[in-house]
């Protein structure tokens, strides 16, 4: 009975949805709304106006810079929420995760150790060249964070955390938010509006350094946040 009712509800709900799909403009047609408003402007003027050959970065950091600033704030707030839930102090029973019964495989250890420098170079390249090649702060930062997690898995969290002592970590976690604020306020002082980049004039040379600074902030903050969430979940403090 319940099954039949569910099926009937599903069919009933799918009718208007499928009807709506049939009203959508054809895929790839040139006069779709997605291709007719701001997109042609981005594609034609983007590299010239923003100094980014990678249009994705031009949109993320320049045209929609406010959105990205909001996003990094959301990510930082998410980290705070994870800490708030997981790092409640339990004075009496200090629960230490028991060491894994299975020792770390030498193959895994060797592969992580050998690949680590290449992974770091790859992500740093991505972060620094985010304005001209695919990738950027978010991707590069996540890759470094994933590398920290891999290192924690093979060498233990405590040895990995020594790379980022707690005092340093607490400042790296909000790096993206702080960097947005610094670049935004600098743009406001120089050009009049929050987070504005130079389009022409004597400060034009500052455009790419500004973008790179924001990318570095996002990358460092992202890496610290990804690794901290892992450490908090694992129980070895964020």
């Amino acid at each position, binding site marked *: 009975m319940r099954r039949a009712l569910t099926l009937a509800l599903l069919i009933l709900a799918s009718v208007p949805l499928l009807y709506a799909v049939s009203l959508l403009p054809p895929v790839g047609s040139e006069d779709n709304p997605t291709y007719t408003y701001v997109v042609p402007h981005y594609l034609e003027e983007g590299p010239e106006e923003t100094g980014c050959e990678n249009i994705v970065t031009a949109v993320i950091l320049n045209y929609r810079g406010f959105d990205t600033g909001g996003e990094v704030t959301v990510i930082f707030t998410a980290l705070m929420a994870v800490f708030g839930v997981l790092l409640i102090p339990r004075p009496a029973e200090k629960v230490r995760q028991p060491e894994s019964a299975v020792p770390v495989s030498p193959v895994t250890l060797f592969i992580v150790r050998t690949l680590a420098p290449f992974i770091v170079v790859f992500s740093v390249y991505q972060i620094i060249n985010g304005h001209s090649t*695919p990738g*950027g702060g*978010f991707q590069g930062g996540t890759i470094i964070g994933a590398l920290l997690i891999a290192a924690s898995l093979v060498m233990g969290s405590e040895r990995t955390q020594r790379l980022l002592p707690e005092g340093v970590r607490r400042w790296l976690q909000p790096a993206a938010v702080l960097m947005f604020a610094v670049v935004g306020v600098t743009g406001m002082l120089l050009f009049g509006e929050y987070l504005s980049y130079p389009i022409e004039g004597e400060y034009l040379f500052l455009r790419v350094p500004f973008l790179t600074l924001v990318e570095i902030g996002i990358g460092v903050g992202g890496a610290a946040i990804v690794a901290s969430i892992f450490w908090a*979940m694992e*129980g070895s403090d964020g």
Partner: protein
Amino acid sequence: MSRAFDLVLYGLLIACALAVIRTKDLLAASIIFSTYSLILCLVWQLRGSPDVALTEAAVGAGVTTVLFLVAVARTSRRER
């Protein structure tokens, strides 16, 4: 040729998605979900969006899988 490859990828995506729902072993489900992300990453790359593909590979296949695994390790492995 590329159309056929697309169809194979979409088929694998749907198969993975169904497998994640059907699997009762949460460890296995996390690994299958990571496979799903890797295939989706290939799809993004073939659709011409390398930025999204990179994010999918790093976040979807890498970090979230580890977080799922930690969560499974700290709770229970079987779905109830």
